[in-house]
């Protein structure tokens, strides 16, 4: 049971390039999330998904797109990278059970992205 994994661990992009970050979870969780974390700040929610085939915007969605074609995977795309998107990106997932209050989010190890 690997939990939540993220690919790649580190990437350098030039302004205007595109890339996709992959998040995978093997816990059969319904909910998945993408966050970004900038130096000295807490995590900010980019997009999230409450189930396969569904996505929703979070706090800072501009410049990002997501897809949840399979329950275990949640992809985060940058169509045209900008220096302002230099950050550490974290993926998380959680189970849906009962009222949902009790369930914990499990985080991946993060992807460091540098946009030049």
């Amino acid at each position, binding site marked *: 049971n690997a939990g939540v994994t993220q690919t790649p661990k580190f990437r350098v992009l030039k302004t205007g390039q595109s890339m996709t970050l992959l998040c995978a979870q093997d816990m059969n969780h319904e*909910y998945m999330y993408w966050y970004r974390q900038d130096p000295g700040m807490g*995590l900010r929610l980019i997009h*999230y998904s*409450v189930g396969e085939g569904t996505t929703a915007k979070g706090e800072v969605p501009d410049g990002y797109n997501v897809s949840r074609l399979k329950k275990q995977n949640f992809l985060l795309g940058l169509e045209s990278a900008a220096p302002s998107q230099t950050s550490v990106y974290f993926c*998380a997932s959680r189970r849906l059970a009962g009222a949902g*209050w009790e369930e*914990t989010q499990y985080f991946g190890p993060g992807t460091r992205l540098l946009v030049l």
Partner: protein
Amino acid sequence: LAKTTQPISMDSYEGQEVNITCSHNNIATNDYITWYQQFPSQGPRFIIQGYKTKVTNEVASLFIPADRKSSTLSLPRVSLSDTAVYYCLVKKPDKLIFGTGTRLQVFP
């Protein structure tokens, strides 16, 4: 948006009890309070959560007064390995709202 406010940093010594207070004035009726711990270069890790009164687990205690506008995370007898950033979060039905966190430094 129900964001939280907590001290930017705290210092402590090994073996002491540490209390980190968080305010969440705009918490909604259906929101829970949850705390996460984050070490450098790692994702956040769940510590404890609660709705009101007191919750205790093997790691920490969480105190939430009746008005629920604040909460206090209590770490008993901290060790050097407890040096980390601690986030107080409002937990909504489908997402977490992170604040800026409290950087706890534990000295020998």
